[in-house]
């Protein structure tokens, strides 16, 4: 590190490259990309880096290293960039690991994101969208008009309720109960008289309580007959009984968008999440080799060697450094000379099940019949949720996501054939949104990451405090590992990007220190 201060170019210094708005929080260390001048006079010739995998971490690493003039080659097994960022649109064709082939026939311009679909405001993903000129738009991560529908031992079991009504009732009753407990003196050991007065004032507002501290329903729940002109005062949605609301657990998903990385506003690229990765591809050009399936990777005395097949032809490539972004549980399948502890550590991040089904309808019934514009309905059925499109509002068709689920609930679909998945999803969705859910279906496309070649997992399950996690942060000789699984934002593009940036910084420091 001492050498860096002496010899490093501008790109090596942790100083503000751009003063405005690039850091998500004021104290977050800034990333300083390698800069064109950094390598001048550092060593004879050009430094080369091979990147295995053209997903977010691989593309980001190659793009950033390319800024300083590294000779980068990305080997990507698929015919497209993005990895688990995969937008399904007309012409998308995929054969899964069980040998079933699907071809997407959505109308031109329509799509859904099989993988990543939303970006929180704090993520560096937005910085790349800005830098690469990818237009973004808001993504509805919550919608008062979508529905909740859960199984319970109450009359509300299997009944659909709008989020707005579920929230009005839940907040109302919880406020009523807390106000009651406070006014009866149950909290006198922790609240002063002034505290209690302030709390009562807050709860009256938060729960929309009556003057005597009860929840008697609220206009927040919405209307069965909309208010109109003159004396059309509208008909309020009646509150459900307190005990039913509490026992039915209508509020079980309210905290979803309280989470740091799920809170509104959220964003997404116009035209599909893969736009970011096609923008990387456009910058990298023929430095990405598609259809290149890696078969081995090794350290050599002077660098690294990778063998791969492309178009059925075995080939090899040598380079000074290697960045491996292949999913950890698939690395052991490569011919390699990694030490035993690293191979063992690579089995620690466990693969997981998740996936989605896109259903194309020839009628936007969710807009015309239910006034739902984006967001998602939530259920304890296997489909878990129904996500409504954030694009093509008011057009004559649209693609909804008929399920996005994980773990056991996704496994209820994963091993089915596509037409079986669609049938099950339509049946469950119809129980929430009614019979129209099964009508006007034009086409569909489904995917399960566990059954998708080259991924075989949605994301990694492991602890970022584990010894294995720490071990894989370190290079093995000249081989570095990168990916969202090596970050504190697993399953987010942000995680892949910050992991790539960390590896880029390590490689660059190492190279620049070499005289």
């Amino acid at each position, binding site marked *: 590190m001492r050498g860096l201060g002496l010899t490093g170019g501008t790109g090596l210094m942790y100083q503000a490259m751009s003063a405005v708005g690039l850091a998500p929080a004021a104290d977050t260390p800034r990333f300083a990309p390698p800069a064109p001048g950094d390598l001048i006079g550092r060593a004879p010739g050009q430094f080369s880096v091979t990147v295995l995998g053209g997903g977010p971490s691989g593309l980001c690493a190659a793009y950033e290293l390319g800024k300083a003039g590294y000779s980068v080659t990305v080997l990507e097994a698929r015919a497209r960039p993005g990895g688990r960022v995969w937008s399904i649109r007309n012409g998308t064709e995929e054969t899964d*690991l*069980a*040998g*079933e*082939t699907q071809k997407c026939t959505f109308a031109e311009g329509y799509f859904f994101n099989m993988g990543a679909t939303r970006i929180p405001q704090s993520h560096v993903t937005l910085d790349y969208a800005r830098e690469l000129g990818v237009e973004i738009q808001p993504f509805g991560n919550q919608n008062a008009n979508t529905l909740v529908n859960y199984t319970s031992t109450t009359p509300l079991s299997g009944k659909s309720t709008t989020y707005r009504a579920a929230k009005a009732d839940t907040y109302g009753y919880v406020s009523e109960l807390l106000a009651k407990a406070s006014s009866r003196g149950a909290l006198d050991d922790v609240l002063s008289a002034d505290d209690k007065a302030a709390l009562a004032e807050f709860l009256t507002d938060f729960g929309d309580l009556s003057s005597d501290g009860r929840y008697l329903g609220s206009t927040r729940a919405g209307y069965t007959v909309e208010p109109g002109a003159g004396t059309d005062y509208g008909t309020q949605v009646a509150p459900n009984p307190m005990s039913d609301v509490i026992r039915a657990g209508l509020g079980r998903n309210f905290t979803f968008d309280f989470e740091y990385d799920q809170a509104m506003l959220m964003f997404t690229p116009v035209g599909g999440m893969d736009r970011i990765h096609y923008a990387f591809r456009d910058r990298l050009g023929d430095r990405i080799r598609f259809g290149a399936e890696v*078969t*081995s990777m090794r350290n050599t005395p002077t660098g690294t060697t990778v063998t791969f097949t492309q178009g059925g032809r075995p080939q090899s490539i040598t380079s000074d450094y290697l960045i491996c972004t292949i999913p950890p549980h698939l690395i*052991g*399948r490569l*011919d390699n000379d990694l030490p035993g502890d690293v191979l063992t550590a690579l089995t620690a991040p*466990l693969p997981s099940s998740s996936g989605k089904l896109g259903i194309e309808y020839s009628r936007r019934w969710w807009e015309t019949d239910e006034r739902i514009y984006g967001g998602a309905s939530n259920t304890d059925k296997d489909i878990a949720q129904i996500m409504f499109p954030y694009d093509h509002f008011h057009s004559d068709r649209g693609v909804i996501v008929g399920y996005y689920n994980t*773990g*056991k609930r996704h*496994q*209820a*679909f*994963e*091993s*089915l*054939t596509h037409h*079986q998945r669609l049938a099950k999803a339509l049946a469950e969705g119809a129980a929430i949104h009614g019979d129209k859910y099964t009508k006007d279906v034009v086409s569909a496309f489904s995917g399960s990451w566990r*059954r998708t070649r080259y991924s075989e997992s949605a994301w990694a399950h492991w602890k970022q405090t584990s010894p294995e996690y720490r071990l894989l942060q370190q290079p093995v000789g000249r081989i570095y590992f990168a990916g969202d699984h090596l970050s504190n934002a697993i399953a987010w593009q942000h995680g892949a990007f910050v992991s790539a940036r960390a590896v880029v910084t390590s490689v660059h420091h190492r190279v620049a220190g070499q005289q």
Partner: protein
Amino acid sequence: MPHRVLLTALAAALLASVASGCTAQAAPAAPAPAAPPLVAKTVLPTGVADPMIAEGVVIGAGQPIYQTSGVGPKKLNAAAPDGSPESYIDPEQFPSGTLTPGVTLTPGVTITEAQAMNALARVRENLEERGLSLENVVSMMVYLDNPPGSDRADYAGWNRAYRQFFANTDLTSGDTLLKPVGTAAPAAPQLRNPARPSRSTVEVQSLAAPGWLVEIEVDAVYPAGQNPR
């Protein structure tokens, strides 16, 4: 290079047979001298849409065969005492139902069944590490110890677990067959797999690892055009 072309042709034929719901079969006989070498062909009972196992298997001379050691369940349930049968349940596989130490089992799941699901997942990992899959399994040997309190191996529990990973496609329609875990309603199996290997299941006095009730050996044939690295 002609050899390579033949293998590729066979790979295509094999994929087609998998897609149509059959297990590994030889390509249709082509005119001599271009007849592709036989990979493996399981002989299934005729007229049955959902056979459990094969009557036997023909393995071609040309393809490498991978034979596993005996694979048992992995100790994944830290909440159960060391060496107890319950310590060999995979908590990831059982999210709901009645409570066993450290694990919430689906109703009606037997200890043999739970251990077998764990062991089969380990067999899957073992094969995938070598570039194989459970679909490539042509033959299987299964050793069962009696569950505590029983004088007979739990063959029914074992078979339920087996169907979660093997023999769960309709050979006529190609659809995935819903299969039960425990006494739960039939549902999508853990892994879609048309393979119906030849198989023997025997009860043994004991297994080497204390607490194991299940040990499985499989033979898997590398698909045409694919070799061990």
